[in-house]
Protein backbone atom coordinates (compact mmCIF):
# COMPACT_ATOMS: atom_id res chain seq x y z
CA UNK A 1 0.00 0.00 0.00
CA UNK A 2 2.80 2.43 0.76
CA UNK A 3 4.78 2.03 -2.44
CA UNK A 4 4.13 1.67 -6.14
CA UNK A 5 1.16 3.96 -6.26
CA UNK A 6 -0.63 3.27 -9.50
CA UNK A 7 -0.66 6.48 -11.49
CA UNK A 8 -4.17 5.55 -12.54
CA UNK A 9 -6.94 3.91 -10.57
CA UNK A 10 -9.05 1.15 -12.04
CA UNK A 11 -12.73 1.69 -11.25
CA UNK A 12 -16.04 0.13 -12.17
CA UNK A 13 -18.99 2.48 -11.90
CA UNK A 14 -22.56 2.69 -13.11
CA UNK A 15 -23.39 5.94 -14.89
CA UNK A 16 -27.03 6.53 -15.84
CA UNK A 17 -27.65 2.81 -15.56
CA UNK A 18 -24.75 1.77 -17.75
CA UNK A 19 -21.67 0.09 -16.31
CA UNK A 20 -18.29 1.62 -17.15
CA UNK A 21 -14.83 0.28 -16.47
CA UNK A 22 -12.29 3.09 -16.41
CA UNK A 23 -8.71 3.96 -15.64
CA UNK A 24 -8.75 7.38 -13.99
CA UNK A 25 -5.79 9.47 -12.86
CA UNK A 26 -5.88 9.69 -9.05
CA UNK A 27 -6.29 13.46 -9.11
CA UNK A 28 -9.00 13.62 -11.80
CA UNK A 29 -12.31 15.02 -10.57
CA UNK A 30 -15.56 13.19 -11.17
CA UNK A 31 -16.56 16.22 -13.26
CA UNK A 32 -13.59 15.72 -15.61
CA UNK A 33 -14.08 11.96 -15.56
CA UNK A 34 -17.63 12.40 -16.82
CA UNK A 35 -16.81 15.08 -19.38
CA UNK A 36 -13.40 13.97 -20.63
CA UNK A 37 -13.39 10.19 -20.27
CA UNK A 38 -17.07 9.35 -20.81
CA UNK A 39 -18.03 12.28 -23.02
CA UNK A 40 -21.01 13.25 -20.89
CA UNK A 41 -20.73 17.01 -21.24
CA UNK A 42 -24.17 17.85 -19.83
CA UNK A 43 -22.58 18.33 -16.41
CA UNK A 44 -21.09 21.83 -16.41
CA UNK A 45 -18.00 23.33 -14.83
CA UNK A 46 -18.70 26.56 -12.98
CA UNK A 47 -16.74 27.76 -9.98
CA UNK A 48 -14.67 24.61 -9.29
CA UNK A 49 -14.90 25.22 -5.56
CA UNK A 50 -18.31 24.05 -4.41
CA UNK A 51 -20.24 27.30 -4.47
CA UNK A 52 -22.24 27.25 -7.72
CA UNK A 53 -23.63 23.73 -8.10
CA UNK A 54 -23.38 23.74 -11.93
CA UNK A 55 -21.57 20.39 -11.73
CA UNK A 56 -24.19 18.72 -9.51
CA UNK A 57 -24.60 14.98 -10.06
CA UNK A 58 -26.21 12.26 -7.97
CA UNK A 59 -24.00 9.60 -6.39
CA UNK A 60 -25.77 6.71 -4.63
CA UNK A 61 -28.87 8.83 -4.05
CA UNK A 62 -27.17 11.98 -2.74
CA UNK A 63 -26.47 15.12 -4.77
CA UNK A 64 -22.84 16.22 -4.80
CA UNK A 65 -20.66 18.80 -6.53
CA UNK A 66 -18.75 16.61 -9.01
CA UNK A 67 -15.85 19.10 -9.04
CA UNK A 68 -15.25 18.19 -5.39
CA UNK A 69 -15.34 14.41 -5.88
CA UNK A 70 -12.53 12.38 -7.41
CA UNK A 71 -13.39 9.98 -10.19
CA UNK A 72 -11.56 7.30 -8.22
CA UNK A 73 -14.06 7.72 -5.38
CA UNK A 74 -17.05 6.46 -7.39
CA UNK A 75 -15.68 2.94 -7.75
CA UNK A 76 -18.64 0.63 -7.14
CA UNK A 77 -21.09 3.53 -6.95
CA UNK A 78 -24.06 4.59 -9.02
CA UNK A 79 -23.75 8.00 -10.68
CA UNK A 80 -26.64 9.84 -12.32
CA UNK A 81 -26.25 12.93 -14.48
CA UNK A 82 -28.62 15.20 -16.39
CA UNK A 83 -28.25 12.91 -19.42
CA UNK A 84 -30.05 10.22 -17.43
CA UNK A 85 -33.20 12.25 -16.83
CA UNK A 86 -35.04 12.16 -20.17
CA UNK A 87 -36.25 8.86 -21.61
CA UNK A 88 -36.99 7.90 -25.24
CA UNK A 89 -40.61 8.65 -24.36
CA UNK A 90 -39.89 12.26 -23.49
CA UNK A 91 -38.44 14.80 -21.13
CA UNK A 92 -38.42 14.34 -17.38
CA UNK A 93 -41.28 16.30 -15.75
CA UNK A 94 -38.73 18.71 -14.28
CA UNK A 95 -37.22 19.38 -17.70
CA UNK A 96 -40.69 19.93 -19.15
CA UNK A 97 -41.56 22.30 -16.31
CA UNK A 98 -38.32 24.27 -16.79
CA UNK A 99 -39.28 24.75 -20.46
CA UNK A 100 -42.86 25.74 -19.71
CA UNK A 101 -41.90 28.17 -16.95
CA UNK A 102 -38.97 29.63 -18.94
CA UNK A 103 -36.72 28.74 -16.02
CA UNK A 104 -33.50 29.20 -17.97
CA UNK A 105 -31.74 31.68 -20.19
CA UNK A 106 -28.10 30.82 -20.91
CA UNK A 107 -28.59 27.32 -19.53
CA UNK A 108 -25.20 26.75 -17.94
CA UNK A 109 -26.66 26.31 -14.47
CA UNK A 110 -29.64 24.27 -15.69
CA UNK A 111 -28.23 20.73 -15.57
CA UNK A 112 -27.12 21.32 -11.99
CA UNK A 113 -30.50 22.74 -11.00
CA UNK A 114 -32.30 19.82 -12.68
CA UNK A 115 -30.20 17.13 -11.00
CA UNK A 116 -30.40 18.92 -7.64
CA UNK A 117 -34.18 19.38 -7.89
CA UNK A 118 -34.63 15.74 -8.89
CA UNK A 119 -32.66 14.76 -5.79
CA UNK A 120 -35.25 16.62 -3.73
CA UNK A 121 -38.41 15.43 -5.51
CA UNK A 122 -37.24 11.79 -5.55
CA UNK A 123 -37.44 11.83 -1.75
CA UNK A 124 -39.95 14.61 -1.06
CA UNK A 125 -42.54 14.75 -3.85
CA UNK A 126 -44.36 17.82 -2.45
CA UNK A 127 -41.84 20.18 -0.86
CA UNK A 128 -42.82 23.67 0.31
CA UNK A 129 -41.46 26.71 -1.51
CA UNK A 130 -39.17 27.37 1.45
CA UNK A 131 -37.86 23.82 1.33
CA UNK A 132 -37.18 24.12 -2.42
CA UNK A 133 -35.30 27.39 -1.94
CA UNK A 134 -33.26 25.93 0.92
CA UNK A 135 -32.46 22.77 -1.06
CA UNK A 136 -31.32 24.79 -4.08
CA UNK A 137 -29.18 27.26 -2.08
CA UNK A 138 -26.09 25.45 -3.39
CA UNK A 139 -27.02 26.21 -7.00
CA UNK A 140 -26.36 29.66 -8.46
CA UNK A 141 -28.01 31.24 -11.51
CA UNK A 142 -26.74 34.57 -12.84
CA UNK A 143 -29.37 35.32 -15.49
CA UNK A 144 -32.84 33.89 -14.97
CA UNK A 145 -33.14 34.58 -11.28
CA UNK A 146 -34.62 32.08 -8.90
CA UNK A 147 -38.38 32.71 -8.97
CA UNK A 148 -38.95 30.98 -12.30
CA UNK A 149 -36.73 28.08 -11.30
CA UNK A 150 -38.60 27.63 -8.03
CA UNK A 151 -41.95 27.84 -9.88
CA UNK A 152 -40.79 25.16 -12.31
CA UNK A 153 -39.81 22.85 -9.47
CA UNK A 154 -43.18 23.52 -7.82
CA UNK A 155 -44.92 22.69 -11.11
CA UNK A 156 -43.07 19.37 -11.32
CA UNK A 157 -43.99 18.55 -7.72
CA UNK A 158 -46.95 16.32 -7.20
Amino acid at each position, binding site marked *: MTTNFPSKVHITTTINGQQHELLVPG*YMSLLDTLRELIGLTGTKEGCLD*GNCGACTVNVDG*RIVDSCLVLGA*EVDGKEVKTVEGMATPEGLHPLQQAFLEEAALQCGICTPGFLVAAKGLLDNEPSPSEGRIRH*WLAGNLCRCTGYDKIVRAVQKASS
Partner: protein
Amino acid sequence: MHPFAYVAPNTVAEAVAVLAEHGDRARPLAGGTDLLVKARANVWELDAVVDVKNIPELMSLSVNGDGLSIGAGVPCYQVYENEEIQAQYPGIVDGASIIGGIQVQSRAGLGGNLCNAAPSADGIPSLIAYGAVAKISGSNGNREVAIEDFATGPSRTVLDNDELLTSIEVPKPAANSGAAYTRFIPRNEMDIAVAAVGAFVQLDSSGQNFESARIALASVGPTPILAKAAGDSLAGKPVNDESIDAAAALAKDAATPITDMRGTVDQRKHLVEVLTGRMLRQAVERARG
Protein backbone atom coordinates in the same frame (compact mmCIF):
# COMPACT_ATOMS: atom_id res chain seq x y z
CA MET B 1 -3.34 21.06 -9.63
CA HIS B 2 -0.24 19.03 -8.84
CA PRO B 3 -0.95 15.41 -9.89
CA PHE B 4 -1.39 13.13 -6.90
CA ALA B 5 -1.97 9.44 -6.35
CA TYR B 6 -5.19 8.17 -4.79
CA VAL B 7 -5.13 5.44 -2.18
CA ALA B 8 -8.09 4.07 -0.25
CA PRO B 9 -6.84 1.82 2.55
CA ASN B 10 -9.12 -0.33 4.68
CA THR B 11 -7.40 0.20 8.02
CA VAL B 12 -6.15 3.07 10.16
CA ALA B 13 -2.68 1.50 10.28
CA GLU B 14 -2.37 1.47 6.49
CA ALA B 15 -3.60 5.07 6.26
CA VAL B 16 -1.12 6.21 8.89
CA ALA B 17 1.71 4.40 7.06
CA VAL B 18 0.97 6.29 3.84
CA LEU B 19 0.73 9.62 5.67
CA ALA B 20 4.02 8.91 7.47
CA GLU B 21 5.77 8.04 4.20
CA HIS B 22 4.79 11.29 2.48
CA GLY B 23 4.97 13.82 5.31
CA ASP B 24 3.26 17.06 4.40
CA ARG B 25 2.83 15.90 0.79
CA ALA B 26 -0.07 13.59 1.69
CA ARG B 27 -3.43 14.41 3.25
CA PRO B 28 -6.41 12.39 4.40
CA LEU B 29 -9.47 12.74 2.14
CA ALA B 30 -12.89 12.60 3.76
CA GLY B 31 -15.48 14.83 2.05
CA GLY B 32 -12.89 16.62 -0.06
CA THR B 33 -14.83 19.89 -0.04
CA ASP B 34 -11.87 21.75 1.43
CA LEU B 35 -9.01 19.44 0.39
CA LEU B 36 -9.74 19.48 -3.34
CA VAL B 37 -10.26 23.25 -3.32
CA LYS B 38 -6.89 23.75 -1.60
CA ALA B 39 -5.13 21.26 -3.89
CA ARG B 40 -6.60 22.96 -6.97
CA ALA B 41 -5.51 26.39 -5.69
CA ASN B 42 -2.02 25.00 -5.01
CA VAL B 43 -2.32 25.89 -1.33
CA TRP B 44 -1.20 22.30 -0.85
CA GLU B 45 1.09 20.46 -3.27
CA LEU B 46 0.26 16.81 -2.72
CA ASP B 47 1.79 13.55 -3.92
CA ALA B 48 -0.98 11.41 -2.43
CA VAL B 49 -4.44 11.66 -0.96
CA VAL B 50 -5.56 8.98 1.46
CA ASP B 51 -9.30 8.36 1.14
CA VAL B 52 -10.47 7.33 4.61
CA LYS B 53 -13.98 6.31 3.59
CA ASN B 54 -13.12 2.62 3.22
CA ILE B 55 -12.03 2.47 6.87
CA PRO B 56 -15.11 1.22 8.75
CA GLU B 57 -14.36 2.91 12.10
CA LEU B 58 -13.96 6.31 10.43
CA MET B 59 -17.42 5.94 8.88
CA SER B 60 -19.29 4.81 11.98
CA LEU B 61 -21.81 6.99 13.77
CA SER B 62 -23.25 5.80 17.05
CA VAL B 63 -25.31 7.17 19.91
CA ASN B 64 -25.29 5.14 23.10
CA GLY B 65 -25.21 5.43 26.88
CA ASP B 66 -21.70 6.89 26.85
CA GLY B 67 -22.44 9.56 24.31
CA LEU B 68 -22.10 10.25 20.62
CA SER B 69 -19.24 8.90 18.52
CA ILE B 70 -18.77 10.55 15.12
CA GLY B 71 -16.32 8.80 12.79
CA ALA B 72 -13.94 11.31 11.20
CA GLY B 73 -15.30 10.64 7.70
CA VAL B 74 -19.03 10.78 8.47
CA PRO B 75 -20.76 13.43 6.31
CA CYS B 76 -22.90 16.20 7.81
CA TYR B 77 -26.23 14.93 6.48
CA GLN B 78 -25.87 11.65 8.39
CA VAL B 79 -25.40 13.67 11.56
CA TYR B 80 -28.30 16.10 11.15
CA GLU B 81 -30.74 13.53 9.72
CA ASN B 82 -30.20 11.19 12.70
CA GLU B 83 -33.24 11.43 14.98
CA GLU B 84 -31.36 10.47 18.14
CA ILE B 85 -28.77 13.18 17.47
CA GLN B 86 -31.55 15.68 16.75
CA ALA B 87 -33.12 14.87 20.12
CA GLN B 88 -29.96 14.72 22.24
CA TYR B 89 -27.46 17.02 20.50
CA PRO B 90 -29.41 19.90 18.89
CA GLY B 91 -26.40 22.22 19.06
CA ILE B 92 -24.41 19.86 16.84
CA VAL B 93 -27.33 19.64 14.40
CA ASP B 94 -27.48 23.48 14.28
CA GLY B 95 -23.87 23.59 13.08
CA ALA B 96 -23.81 20.55 10.79
CA SER B 97 -26.90 21.67 8.88
CA ILE B 98 -25.51 25.05 7.78
CA ILE B 99 -22.10 24.01 6.43
CA GLY B 100 -22.33 24.75 2.70
CA GLY B 101 -25.34 23.68 0.67
CA ILE B 102 -26.97 20.27 0.32
CA GLN B 103 -24.32 19.10 -2.16
CA VAL B 104 -21.51 19.97 0.24
CA GLN B 105 -23.35 18.40 3.19
CA SER B 106 -23.49 15.11 1.26
CA ARG B 107 -19.71 14.95 1.57
CA ALA B 108 -18.34 17.36 4.16
CA GLY B 109 -18.30 16.20 7.76
CA LEU B 110 -17.48 17.44 11.23
CA GLY B 111 -14.16 15.56 11.20
CA GLY B 112 -13.00 17.40 8.11
CA ASN B 113 -14.40 20.67 9.44
CA LEU B 114 -12.27 20.18 12.54
CA CYS B 115 -9.11 19.27 10.61
CA ASN B 116 -9.57 22.11 8.12
CA ALA B 117 -9.39 24.40 11.17
CA ALA B 118 -11.05 27.44 9.69
CA PRO B 119 -11.58 30.14 12.33
CA SER B 120 -15.18 30.28 11.04
CA ALA B 121 -15.83 26.52 11.13
CA ASP B 122 -19.55 26.07 11.84
CA GLY B 123 -19.04 22.54 13.13
CA ILE B 124 -16.55 23.30 15.87
CA PRO B 125 -18.18 25.63 18.45
CA SER B 126 -20.90 23.17 19.45
CA LEU B 127 -18.34 20.37 19.77
CA ILE B 128 -16.39 22.60 22.16
CA ALA B 129 -19.56 23.56 24.03
CA TYR B 130 -20.52 19.90 24.53
CA GLY B 131 -17.01 19.11 25.80
CA ALA B 132 -16.13 16.76 22.94
CA VAL B 133 -12.76 15.10 22.42
CA ALA B 134 -10.84 14.25 19.24
CA LYS B 135 -9.40 10.73 18.95
CA ILE B 136 -6.18 10.61 16.98
CA SER B 137 -4.11 7.69 15.67
CA GLY B 138 -0.52 8.00 14.50
CA SER B 139 2.77 6.19 14.00
CA ASN B 140 3.48 6.50 17.70
CA GLY B 141 0.09 5.32 18.91
CA ASN B 142 -3.18 6.93 19.88
CA ARG B 143 -4.02 10.11 21.78
CA GLU B 144 -6.98 12.28 22.65
CA VAL B 145 -7.19 16.06 22.44
CA ALA B 146 -9.99 18.33 23.66
CA ILE B 147 -11.71 19.99 20.70
CA GLU B 148 -10.91 23.49 22.01
CA ASP B 149 -7.20 22.58 21.84
CA PHE B 150 -7.32 20.95 18.38
CA ALA B 151 -6.94 23.99 16.12
CA THR B 152 -3.72 25.94 16.71
CA GLY B 153 -4.22 28.65 14.09
CA PRO B 154 -5.99 29.22 10.77
CA SER B 155 -5.72 25.89 8.87
CA ARG B 156 -3.34 24.57 11.55
CA THR B 157 -3.99 21.79 14.04
CA VAL B 158 -2.24 19.65 16.63
CA LEU B 159 -2.03 16.79 14.10
CA ASP B 160 1.44 15.69 13.08
CA ASN B 161 1.93 14.65 9.46
CA ASP B 162 1.73 10.99 10.41
CA GLU B 163 -1.45 11.40 12.46
CA LEU B 164 -5.08 10.87 11.52
CA LEU B 165 -8.24 12.05 13.25
CA THR B 166 -10.30 8.87 13.71
CA SER B 167 -13.38 10.08 15.60
CA ILE B 168 -14.99 12.80 17.66
CA GLU B 169 -16.40 11.63 21.00
CA VAL B 170 -19.14 13.75 22.51
CA PRO B 171 -20.12 12.97 26.12
CA LYS B 172 -23.75 12.20 26.86
CA PRO B 173 -25.43 15.47 27.90
CA ALA B 174 -26.60 15.57 31.52
CA ALA B 175 -30.29 15.76 32.38
CA ASN B 176 -31.81 19.26 32.13
CA SER B 177 -29.21 20.37 29.60
CA GLY B 178 -29.57 22.05 26.23
CA ALA B 179 -27.42 23.62 23.53
CA ALA B 180 -27.68 25.88 20.51
CA TYR B 181 -25.46 27.36 17.80
CA THR B 182 -25.92 30.18 15.34
CA ARG B 183 -23.85 32.46 13.16
CA PHE B 184 -24.37 35.92 11.76
CA ILE B 185 -24.20 36.18 7.97
CA PRO B 186 -25.55 38.92 5.70
CA ARG B 187 -27.33 36.34 3.51
CA ASN B 188 -29.76 33.52 4.29
CA GLU B 189 -27.55 30.57 3.27
CA MET B 190 -24.17 29.52 1.89
CA ASP B 191 -21.96 32.05 3.62
CA ILE B 192 -19.08 32.24 6.08
CA ALA B 193 -19.79 33.53 9.57
CA VAL B 194 -19.01 37.12 10.47
CA ALA B 195 -19.28 35.89 14.05
CA ALA B 196 -20.78 32.74 15.58
CA VAL B 197 -21.61 31.38 19.02
CA GLY B 198 -22.38 27.94 20.42
CA ALA B 199 -23.68 27.48 23.96
CA PHE B 200 -24.32 24.49 26.20
CA VAL B 201 -26.16 24.86 29.50
CA GLN B 202 -26.96 22.47 32.30
CA LEU B 203 -29.78 23.56 34.61
CA ASP B 204 -30.79 22.24 38.02
CA SER B 205 -33.87 20.06 38.32
CA SER B 206 -36.11 23.11 38.84
CA GLY B 207 -34.94 24.51 35.50
CA GLN B 208 -34.54 27.92 37.19
CA ASN B 209 -30.78 27.89 37.88
CA PHE B 210 -27.63 27.20 35.89
CA GLU B 211 -25.44 24.38 37.15
CA SER B 212 -22.83 24.88 34.45
CA ALA B 213 -22.37 26.31 30.97
CA ARG B 214 -19.86 26.28 28.14
CA ILE B 215 -19.74 28.95 25.46
CA ALA B 216 -17.67 28.74 22.27
CA LEU B 217 -17.07 31.39 19.62
CA ALA B 218 -16.09 31.27 15.95
CA SER B 219 -14.86 33.81 13.39
CA VAL B 220 -13.61 36.10 16.14
CA GLY B 221 -10.05 34.82 16.56
CA PRO B 222 -7.41 32.71 14.81
CA THR B 223 -9.23 29.55 15.96
CA PRO B 224 -12.63 28.76 17.44
CA ILE B 225 -12.47 29.91 21.07
CA LEU B 226 -13.75 28.44 24.34
CA ALA B 227 -15.01 31.46 26.29
CA LYS B 228 -14.37 29.74 29.59
CA ALA B 229 -14.90 32.67 31.96
CA ALA B 230 -18.22 33.43 30.29
CA GLY B 231 -19.53 29.91 30.77
CA ASP B 232 -18.11 29.55 34.27
CA SER B 233 -19.77 32.79 35.36
CA LEU B 234 -23.17 31.11 35.09
CA ALA B 235 -22.49 28.26 37.54
CA GLY B 236 -24.97 28.51 40.40
CA LYS B 237 -26.65 31.63 38.99
CA PRO B 238 -30.38 31.96 38.43
CA VAL B 239 -31.59 31.90 34.84
CA ASN B 240 -32.41 35.57 34.27
CA ASP B 241 -31.44 38.53 32.11
CA GLU B 242 -28.81 39.71 34.60
CA SER B 243 -26.81 36.46 34.63
CA ILE B 244 -27.16 35.93 30.87
CA ASP B 245 -26.20 39.51 30.02
CA ALA B 246 -23.15 39.26 32.30
CA ALA B 247 -22.03 36.06 30.59
CA ALA B 248 -22.58 37.65 27.16
CA ALA B 249 -20.36 40.57 28.17
CA LEU B 250 -17.62 38.14 29.25
CA ALA B 251 -17.94 36.28 25.92
CA LYS B 252 -17.47 39.61 24.16
CA ASP B 253 -14.27 40.11 26.17
CA ALA B 254 -13.02 36.68 25.04
CA ALA B 255 -13.40 37.55 21.35
CA THR B 256 -10.21 38.67 19.58
CA PRO B 257 -11.45 39.42 16.06
CA ILE B 258 -9.79 41.22 13.18
CA THR B 259 -11.29 43.66 10.73
CA ASP B 260 -11.61 42.17 7.25
CA MET B 261 -14.02 42.14 4.32
CA ARG B 262 -16.66 40.32 6.40
CA GLY B 263 -16.78 42.68 9.35
CA THR B 264 -15.00 45.01 11.70
CA VAL B 265 -13.59 44.34 15.16
CA ASP B 266 -16.36 46.38 16.80
CA GLN B 267 -19.16 44.73 14.82
CA ARG B 268 -17.85 41.27 15.56
CA LYS B 269 -17.45 41.87 19.27
CA HIS B 270 -20.95 43.32 19.40
CA LEU B 271 -22.28 40.31 17.52
CA VAL B 272 -20.64 37.93 19.99
CA GLU B 273 -22.44 39.64 22.87
CA VAL B 274 -25.81 39.57 21.12
CA LEU B 275 -25.50 36.01 19.82
CA THR B 276 -24.27 34.70 23.19
CA GLY B 277 -27.39 36.04 24.86
CA ARG B 278 -29.59 34.52 22.17
CA MET B 279 -27.88 31.13 22.24
CA LEU B 280 -27.95 30.93 26.05
CA ARG B 281 -31.68 31.66 26.02
CA GLN B 282 -32.30 29.12 23.27
CA ALA B 283 -30.17 26.51 25.07
CA VAL B 284 -32.20 27.14 28.25
CA GLU B 285 -35.43 26.71 26.30
CA ARG B 286 -34.18 23.40 24.94
CA ALA B 287 -32.97 22.29 28.37
CA ARG B 288 -36.45 22.91 29.77
CA GLY B 289 -37.88 20.80 26.94
